[in-house]
């Protein structure tokens, strides 16, 4: 179908979103999109969801760190932000979500706000609560493997 004349095209805003989870989490674009739509539907219903759009555009996730760009209608950035804040779990893994910034184009969004986090992670054994445990180290962040899942710590805890 022929595309709309420019003055009738919707105006978008793009939210740069940082996603964090445990190092063993597996999340792809579809999982995140589903959770985002569920969160929006639970928070402000079908009508509000349709009025916000909330399409997940690009999505990258590896070793517990990810970034994505979420599209929303102009003027609905606040509602989009609220729905993003209500995502607590994706694919069974708890996730932390932070909006790094909002832009008018995908390119500005990616260039200005994304790609900041260093992506190298390594394994190490640490002494935690008088026990030797294996841990995943990402920069200053240390995730200690325990019986009931990971415990979040930092290098400060092992000095």
């Amino acid at each position, binding site marked *: 179908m022929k595309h709309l004349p420019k003055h009738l095209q919707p105006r978008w805003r793009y939210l740069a979103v940082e996603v964090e989870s445990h190092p063993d989490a597996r999340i792809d674009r579809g999982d995140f999109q589903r959770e985002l739509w569920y969160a929006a539907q639970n928070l402000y219903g079908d009508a509000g969801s349709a009025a916000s759009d909330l399409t997940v555009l690009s999505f990258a996730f590896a070793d517990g760190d990810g970034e994505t760009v979420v599209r929303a209608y102009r003027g609905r950035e606040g509602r989009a932000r609220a729905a993003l804040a209500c995502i607590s779990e994706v694919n069974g893994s708890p996730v932390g979500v932070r909006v790094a910034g909002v832009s008018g184009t995908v390119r500005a969004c990616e260039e200005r706000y994304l790609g900041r986090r260093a992506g190298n992670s390594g394994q190490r054994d640490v002494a935690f609560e008088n026990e030797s445990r294996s841990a995943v180290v990402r920069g200053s962040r240390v995730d200690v493997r325990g019986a009931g899942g990971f415990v979040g710590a930092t290098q*400060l805890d092992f000095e």
Partner: protein
Amino acid sequence: MYEAVHAHPDGDSTAARFAETAARQGYDGVVVRADDARPDYEGLEEADCDVVDGVEIVADGPDRASGAVGNFRPDRTVVVVRGGTNQLNRFAVEQDRVDVLSRPFAGDGDVNHVLAKAAKRNGVRIEFDLAPALRATGGHRVRHLDDLRKLKRILDHYETPYVVSANPRSHLELRAPRELAAVGEEIGLGAEWVRGGLAEWGRVAARNRERLSESFIAPGVKRGRYEEDD
């Protein structure tokens, strides 16, 4: 703005990890509401943001809570009492040694105008717990949001002090102030109200630190030379 967190072993992340994530999200500091947690606060002076030593008293009745408040008040900066029953809520708002009454609606507890007035008289802040708004669904969430709106209406009328917290149990449950403000706007509390509640933690911590410092004598009393008259 400050957030009050459950550090390991109460939660799943250490106080240092909370501090790092909170600093990244734009908080000025975190209040550790310790129940079993005993973080090393001296080592945390190097953390990315301010870490406040707090305690959250979880008791099954006012008698036990009263003893705990007496034990912790002299050496902890922020004393929080977890409510949840009408007796505990009533006890907390009538004690001027208590800084914050948390989760007043957990269990079968409730807040009314009597408690709001008592809280204002004794300077006890009542907590808006955003955790179910962020992480629960269905009827439980609906009832909680209804309770929060009612609480706002009451506290607004009596100008009772309040705090806002997402009650994070791990660094992944922390949400930035702007995100919480957006949620607040959506659920009918208003963005400014949420920001005010997050900032209040910082004011409590600053006031109590001053009171705990050695130079403090009594409110309004300072040691020093007379002010000179012209």
